[in-house]
């Protein structure tokens, strides 16, 4: 689960990770008031969307309006807010369709002496979280990793203990951070590592991380992703979810315990199991088609879930044919057959339907479909299924 920058900074403040004062605004008038309340000579107005690259991104139809702007008066803050709120912001991470800006964050300015990058992610190979710091702040870290990997310093830590003091000293030495800034860095880094563990983060990224003229280390940006599997122990975090930022079809699927991802193509897929679902997309593409979604109905899907899955698939206007690929293990082919028959009565299939069933109760499932009046193109194996569904829309 992702959250907004202003939410992440509220959590940082509670956790002792230093941030600047800031106020969230939903109207231009609120932005005006926020600037006055902050009382600093400069402030930064930032669009709040769940995507990076906002500073370089711009509003659709208005390339002059960037997603992040420096302002020097309440009037300017209000004007920038007018340029952003209710508009669509396009960044390198949003794709061409962009994201609607529903709120902005007005934050105090500061005198930046240095810009750095800091992130914590899980290092899967080491089976531990890893803190990454780079002197190359403000730029895409993927680019640094590609071109100058030696500029990214890494320290693994044990979540039960947190990062050790000597690890922070090593980092400061290599980054040439000393004096009051080193002390500030020590507090910042240990608080951030503790935060990562306490809140079950999947990723915490601060870019840029700055040192200001007073020697303070501050999080100028904050991008947090939480481990969805651990949200059960953080009910307070669940409330930070912003459904406006998520694909409605994906939200609807998740509510029914289905795993769904919208894609660009026109062949809908309904599959059991994530690996098989991905491979089904792959084989459709291999035979010249384009999948319109990834959909894993899960191992133990029941008829209601599968019927809902069909509703979601068929509500996508791009979907011109459907491929059902089931290898029954716990999920029985008869369950799927029942759902196909139910869905055809309830929503009706106005597009060609190719079905490939294998595994548990396959004979009974195939018979049920043959006995029904649902129009089905039957496939014998994966290749046959992919070829038939591609041919069906040709």
């Amino acid at each position, binding site marked *: 689960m992702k959250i907004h920058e202003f939410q992440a900074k509220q959590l940082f403040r509670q956790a002792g990770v230093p941030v600047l004062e800031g106020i969230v605004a939903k109207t231009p008038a609120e932005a005006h008031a926020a600037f006055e309340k902050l009382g600093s000579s400069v402030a930064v107005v930032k669009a709040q969307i769940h995507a990076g690259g906002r500073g370089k991104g711009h509003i659709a139809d208005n390339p002059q309006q960037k997603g992040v702007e420096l302002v020097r008066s309440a009037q300017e803050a209000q004007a920038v807010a007018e340029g952003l709120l209710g508009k669509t912001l396009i960044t390198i991470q949003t794709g061409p369709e962009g994201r609607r800006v529903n709120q902005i964050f007005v934050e105090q300015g500061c005198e930046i002496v240095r810009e750095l990058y800091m992130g914590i992610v899980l290092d899967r190979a080491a089976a531990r979280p890893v803190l990454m710091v780079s002197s190359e702040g403000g730029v895409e870290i993927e680019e640094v990793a590609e071109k100058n990997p030696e500029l990214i310093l890494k320290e693994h830590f044990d979540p039960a203990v947190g990062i050790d003091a000597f690890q922070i000293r090593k980092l400061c030495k290599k980054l040439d951070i000393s004096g009051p800034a080193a002390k500030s860095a020590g507090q910042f880094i240990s608080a951030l590592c503790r935060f990562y563990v306490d809140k079950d983060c999947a990723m915490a990224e601060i870019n840029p991380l700055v040192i200001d003229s007073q020697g303070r280390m501050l999080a100028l940006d904050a991008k947090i992703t939480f481990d969805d*599997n651990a949200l059960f122990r953080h009910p307070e975090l669940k409330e930070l979810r912003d459904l406006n930022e998520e694909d409605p079809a994906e939200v609807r699927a998740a509510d029914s315990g289905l795993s769904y991802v919208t894609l660009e193509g026109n062949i809908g897929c309904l599959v059991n199991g994530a*690996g098989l679902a991905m*491979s089904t997309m*792959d084989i459709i593409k*291999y035979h010249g088609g384009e999948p319109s979604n990834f959909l894993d109905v899960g191992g133990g899907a029941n008829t209601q879930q599968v019927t809902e899955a069909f509703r979601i698939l068929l509500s996508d206007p791009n979907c011109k044919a459907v491929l059902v690929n089931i290898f029954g293990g716990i999920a029985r082919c008869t369950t799927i057959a029942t759902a196909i028959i139910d869905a055809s009565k309830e929503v009706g299939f106005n597009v060609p339907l190719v079905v490939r069933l294998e595994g548990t109760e396959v004979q009974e499932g195939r018979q049920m479909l043959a006995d029904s009046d649902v129009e089905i193109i039957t496939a014998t194996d994966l290749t046959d299924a992919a070829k038939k569904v591609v041919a069906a829309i040709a």
Partner: protein
Amino acid sequence: MSILVNKQTRVLCQGITGSAGAFHTRGCKEYGTQMVGGVTPGKGGQMVEDLPVFDTVEEAVQATQANATMIFVPPPFAADAILEAIDAGIEIIAAITEGVPVLDMVRVYEKVRASNSVLIGPNCPGLITPGECKIGIMPGYIHQPGKVGVMSRSGTLTYEAVWQTSNLGLGQSTCVGLGGDPIVGTNYIDLFKRFESDPQTEAILMIGEIGGSAEEEAAAYVKASVTKPVAAFIAGRTAPPGKRMGHAGAIISGGKGTASEKVAALEDAGIVVAPTPADMGTAVQEAIARGR
């Protein structure tokens, strides 16, 4: 011969009083697995599927001499259940549970690696030595005793591969579902070592997917140390970056973990890579014909 489990394996089910635990305990028993008991804290003394239920794994091991367990405990308690099994000295632990928090697994991983136990999963279908012992949720009848060692990060995709190798008359020595999470107890390399020294295994099929770098690490190991024919398939060539594809571990992040990188690493190691999921069985045939 086979790896990890056989006719002698004595199996417990942790979470046996839940519906999934009871259902699959029955399934494993019907397959011929020696199921010897179950564990659910607070339910000791009951019987499920004609098997005794114990409060703790320690008690269950003392009473039944169990040396393997399958875990169906819900995600908030799954890590604790695995730790209990390690503590009780269980040799083979198959954690079926999906949705275990990843930081819980950081702790479990460290403990299990420092122990004599082998953890399979979590978020996996389990493991099976056809005709001898099934520990997990896979449909038993698609398997056939034979010569291919199968390992995979995916459940149903493994069934597909097993089905293909059975239909080609190759059969399987042992099939292991590694699990779809970012941190799992056993990786490809651990199993390559076991399959390499197992006389029944004549060829190895590894099924991977996008995300992480386990396949690349395995490819380097195969290149250096495996003498048996190896075939592979990687799921997710068409997956978009930044999106979690069902499995918590199946995500391309920061441009890393793509299928094309993995395929290139595997091919460089002399592994036959199936172009589509329909070609996994024939890829094994080709690997055998080609030799190493």
